[in-house]
């Protein structure tokens, strides 16, 4: 499985950059799903030993089910029921977002260069891939107007963190990762509910409208 790690990481980075540059909501959600799927695969690929242990399989399955299937479905349904317009509506243009993604990549590489542990052989691209996802998600949170895109950004961020934590599975207990996953699941659902509320109250999910609370 280890052979797949490198291409997977490259793919993840590409998906990330894609997330930052797509213009259609549907694609945005789809790419988030793809990211989730790649994450599930990455967990399998990163598992130590020739054949992954059963608990890694379970976790990968759970990740695939939740991140690759449940979230995109849920988000798409939300999009449909809210009759959203198809565009992402950025604060910061796509080109700039992409640049920000590249900057995130560079910062991740720098971070990776500062953080090295003797004896710990992480896949060479793990660090940039995870942190690009993380910072890319944050960039989405910052640069997109729609509440739903912010949820996607949050998901991308979480995916990055999850990816970063994947190698620790080799030594750790799975139940903790499952609990984290569950928490994120609930979080996304709560956010989804609130997005519905926002739409009903404001007739829009443009968070740019959210500026009545300030000093």
């Amino acid at each position, binding site marked *: 499985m280890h052979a797949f790690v490198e291409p997977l990481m490259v793919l993840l980075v590409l998906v990330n950059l894609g997330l930052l540059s797509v213009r259609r909501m549907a694609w945005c959600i789809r790419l988030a799903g793809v990211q989730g799927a790649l994450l599930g695969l990455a967990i399998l690929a990163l598992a130590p030993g020739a054949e992954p242990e059963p608990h890694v399989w379970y976790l990968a399955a759970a990740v695939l089910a939740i991140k690759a299937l449940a979230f995109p479905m849920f988000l798409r349904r939300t999009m449909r029921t809210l009759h959203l317009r198809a565009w992402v509506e950025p*604060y910061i243009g796509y080109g700039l977002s992409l640049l920000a993604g590249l900057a995130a990549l560079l*910062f991740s590489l720098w*971070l990776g260069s*500062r*953080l090295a542990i003797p004896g710990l052989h992480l896949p060479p691209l793990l660090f940039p891939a995870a942190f690009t996802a993380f*910072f890319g998600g*944050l960039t989405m*949170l*910052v*640069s*997109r107007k729609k509440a739903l895109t*912010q949820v996607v950004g949050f998901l991308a961020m979480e995916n990055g963190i999850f990816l970063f934590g994947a190698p620790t599975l080799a030594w750790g207990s799975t139940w903790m990762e499952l609990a984290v996953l569950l928490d994120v699941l609930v979080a996304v659902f709560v956010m989804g509910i609130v997005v519905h509320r926002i739409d009903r109250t404001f007739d829009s999910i443009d*968070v*740019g409208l*959210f*500026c*009545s*609370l*300030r*000093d």
Partner: protein
Amino acid sequence: MELFLCALVLILAGGSLGLVLRGRTGRLAGPLGILAGSGLGLVAVLRLLARQEYPRLDLAWGLPVGSFSLGFDPLTLLFLLPCFGLGLACPLYGLGALAHEPERKVRSHWFFFSLLVAGLALVAVARDGFCFLLAWEVMSLSPFFLVSFADEKLEVREAAWTYLVASHLGVLALVAMFAWLAGAAGSTHFDALAWAAPQLAHTWPLFLLALAGFGAKAGLAPLHVWLPEAHPAAPSHVSAFMSGALITAGMYGVARILVLLGPGPAWWGGLLLGLGLLSALLGLAQGLAQGQMKRLLAYSSVENAGIVFLGLGAAHLAARGGLAPAALLAAAGALLHVLNHALFKGLLFLGAGAVLHGAGTVEISSLGGLLKRMPRTGALFLAGTAALAALPPFNGFFSELLIYLGLGQAGMGLRSAGSLAAWGGMAGLALAGGLALAALAKAFGLAFLGEPRTPAATRAHDPGRAELAAMLLLALGCAGMGLAAPWLVTVLAPAAAQVAHLPGMAALDAARDAQSLLRTVLVAALPLPVLGLFLWALRRRLLAGRPVGSSPTWDCGYARPAATMQYGPASFADPLASALGPASGIQHDLARPQGLFPRRAWHRVAAPDLVLDAVFRPAFGAALWAAEHLKWLQHGRIPLYVLSILAALVAVLAWVLA
């Protein structure tokens, strides 16, 4: 010690019972508790003073910092006197003055009054820095509630706010000072602090912090700004207590810190002297310009605080220059002035309260001719005025004389800068004396003499018995302290020696000299009252049997004189105010009559506080302005909020890993 504790318990119990009980008992429990407690406390203090006993006591303490250590020493005993003395007079006055106020307000009023008295007493006896701070803050907070008694008025609320802010900012300086010193000592006990202070490389920051914190409470310029606001706003017996007793806490603090920090460099004395002089002169320059009696008296408190600090500074300078007798004289003068000031300022504030009650206002421009309508108040007020103007043979003269003598001896004994500082202090004190006379002539002369300027002043009347008794008590104190001055010097000598770090023997000798000197002074001052009485009798004798007519005042032939044409407060102050220039802070608002058919014309004169207007208001305004302009940070946009988190993260990571 037991007696003292009983007094404290009585005071607090009275206040708390008053808070709980209803009806007449609820009204009376507070003031009676304070009166009884203060009486008991006074007895305890006088007994300890007479026996020269200085007991100490440590009580159980429930906090991990500090300890509940109490103790007496000469300084403590001295500063307990104004607290308990005015604790006898002010509630007595308040009993009468608040008789018709709503019950709920009165009960809480006496509760906070009891906290104030007890807090003040605890400040004086505390022997632990933390315990001191606790008592200090309780003492500082309660006047806020007392000042805001009539909180339905905007100016009262503003004054209370000013007081609260000033006192709290002062406390912060004190917290810093004690925490710093305690950090070096490893304990907050005064003994430990006194032990640790000499080991410190620098004690001057501590001294400056203490000066800021205590000076703000004492009314030392330029930190005096709360006084002229709070005193007019508070009920008069509260102003009297605050002015006579509360601000002595600040003086006590400085004296105590001089004891704790050990003999400091000479410039401390110079600084104290300079600030004292500044307070004395600024207080008078501004006080002279005031048209409101209580504000004028408040500025006079600033002046007197200045005199006390001037004395302390001179004592410090002289002691560092090896002039023990001069140091003792100045220190004893300063300490005696604390007691004197409590008496006459208490008396004058109560008198102002009686005017407020009798005539409905203390705006001098609305008063006049009160001596005929409030003869008792008038006579007592005049006594207070004479005492405050330091006229012999009243008490104020003797304390100022001691300070003058200390300054003079220091001026002759010290060299160069020290000598000039002492002489300068003397000249300044002389100027202050002249200005004080003018200000007081204005306060008494324009309010009590002449013709009433308004109908309200025509209907003025003396207050009730309780109020008069309270004033009489203080007036007798003023006269008695004057006569007892020679003996008081020896009583004060231990405390003075403590403040100036004088060896016991030198202090004792100097005190003995001072006593015999003051006896001579007393004798030399006696011709004034004796001759005065003789001449008074002579005058009556000469006029008896001769034609004595009465007619309106000679007005140089003016056709229709009116009472409002009398010299008013602004016109009286004008020559001095224009001589003093901007220091008096007088502002004219003049609209001249214009045109053939002039409309309204007016001339309003006000004298707002200079420091408040020039320093504190702009500073607070600038802070507010900056805060308003920082508020865009909370703009309401989520993306930017997340960005700020991201920025924080990147910044921290970059700092951590770089």
